[in-house]
């Protein structure tokens, strides 16, 4: 009896907080008009927004993957001064508001910022253009690969690496033949999470991009724009596509993580 009531409360909570809102998506698209949603989705500005989002992810994900692996290796396998600080900075974006991230970049590359004037002199547009948006996206998605790889590296230990080393393998060879194969699932999982974060970023990009329609507007900014223009059908339509991507990512995530506590 007690078991059923606990289950009931837990699933009820999920229904009210998570599944209820989610189930609204299809219904709202239908209620607002599929035709209108389709018009908004096929709008060239929407297409461009999705293109910008994909571009950002295409740049940020590979860079963060490499960075994440290097940082994880440094944190687990090396000792150096400032290691605690590095650790803290890698975690910071997890706890920091994206708005603070966006504002920091805005101040750094703005007209009166430290780097702003230099870039302006050399004719490079950083703010309200792709470069600052890339930086913002990288910033918010920095931790994920490293966070996944660190525990795996700890778990596998370095015996095999040392063995390879004794047998005369170079550091590079050891990495490709021993280390990378054993951490590959953690890396892949981290990449999936990083991608999801990049595609969904709003706050940081909202500040640095200026949301210029057809130029620096991303898919999530487009959702907001359509909402403010009272084009709810469009807003829900774009959300539906984003949610479809999210659910695809989610399926990948569950497939890649069989070790979690479900028997």
């Amino acid at each position, binding site marked *: 009896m007690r078991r059923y009531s606990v289950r009931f409360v837990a699933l009820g909570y999920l229904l009210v907080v*998570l599944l209820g*809102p989610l189930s609204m998506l299809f219904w709202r698209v239908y*209620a607002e008009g599929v035709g209108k949603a389709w018009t908004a989705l096929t709008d060239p500005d929407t297409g461009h927004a999705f293109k910008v989002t994909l571009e950002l992810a295409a740049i940020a994900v590979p860079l963060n993957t490499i960075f994440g692996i290097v940082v994880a290796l440094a944190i687990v396998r090396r000792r150096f001064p400032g290691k605690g600080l590095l650790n803290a900075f890698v975690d910071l974006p997890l706890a920091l508001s994206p708005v603070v991230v966006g504002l920091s970049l805005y101040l750094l590359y703005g007209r009166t910022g430290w780097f702003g004037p230099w870039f302006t002199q050399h004719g490079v547009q950083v703010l309200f253009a792709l470069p600052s948006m890339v930086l913002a996206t990288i910033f918010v998605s*920095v931790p994920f690969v490293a966070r996944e790889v660190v525990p795996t590296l700890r778990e596998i230990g370095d015996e095999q690496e040392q063995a390879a080393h004794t047998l005369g393998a170079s550091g590079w060879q050891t990495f490709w033949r021993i280390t990378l194969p054993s951490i590959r699932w953690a890396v892949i999982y981290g990449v999936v999470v990083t991608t999801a974060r990049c595609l*969904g970023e709003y706050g940081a990009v909202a500040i640095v991009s200026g949301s210029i329609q057809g130029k620096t507007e991303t898919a999530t900014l487009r959702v907001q724009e359509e909402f403010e223009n009272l084009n709810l059908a469009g807003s829900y339509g774009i*959300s539906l596509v984003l949610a479809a991507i999210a659910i695809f990512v989610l399926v990948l995530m569950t497939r890649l993580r069989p070790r979690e*506590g*479900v028997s």
Partner: protein
Amino acid sequence: MIVALPIAALIWSSRNDGWSGFWNAISAPEAVAALKLTLAVAALVALTNAFAGTLIAWVLVRDDFRGKTVVNGIIDLPFALPTIVAGLLVLALYGPHSPVDVHAAYTRYAIYLVLLFVTLPFVVRTVQPVLYELDTQMEEAARSLGARELTIFRRIVLPSILPGILSGVAMAFARAIGEIGAIVILSGNLPYKTEVASVYVFNLSESGNGTAAAAVAVVLLAISFLVLLAVGGIRRMATRYERA
């Protein structure tokens, strides 16, 4: 380079108008109201998560029912879904066109609800693995000695999963403090009423008041640092506990 330098620039800019300017910016009535609201809602969200998250983790590990794998998968959805979509969805269910006749749009309840959506996975995902690893022998021993279920939970299970709960709660709190995408659509952002700190910072920055925005942002930054310190402390305590 990518993380530390912008942060340094932020702190530097926040002091453009000197200490008094910094103080004026963060003690402006609207700023204080926004920060208070943010902290209060985030604390409430964190507390709710402590209970709901533990309960869900418990059900996912100890209970068995059809569709459990699906439920387990769906827990991660808030991590995968863009938060602005989350905001839109909560607005659809509990907003002006609500099919269940709940009209929470543009109120503080809406902020609370959407933050619950966004922060759902944190506690579940930190408690679940610990609970899974936990040996049930001690619980059975206690049960055979006549302990009540609640006593077993409080005396045996809770001490082991407490570090997990606390670090999950801390991360959920930090997330709730910083969230903007989910809130911006459905809170209405009325100053003194439903304007949270991140939206306030955003608005200041959009209106060209970078220095004041930076000052309030520094406060948020300090909170983030404190949360990370707390999480680090909890982790260290947990490992010491294991070793002992």
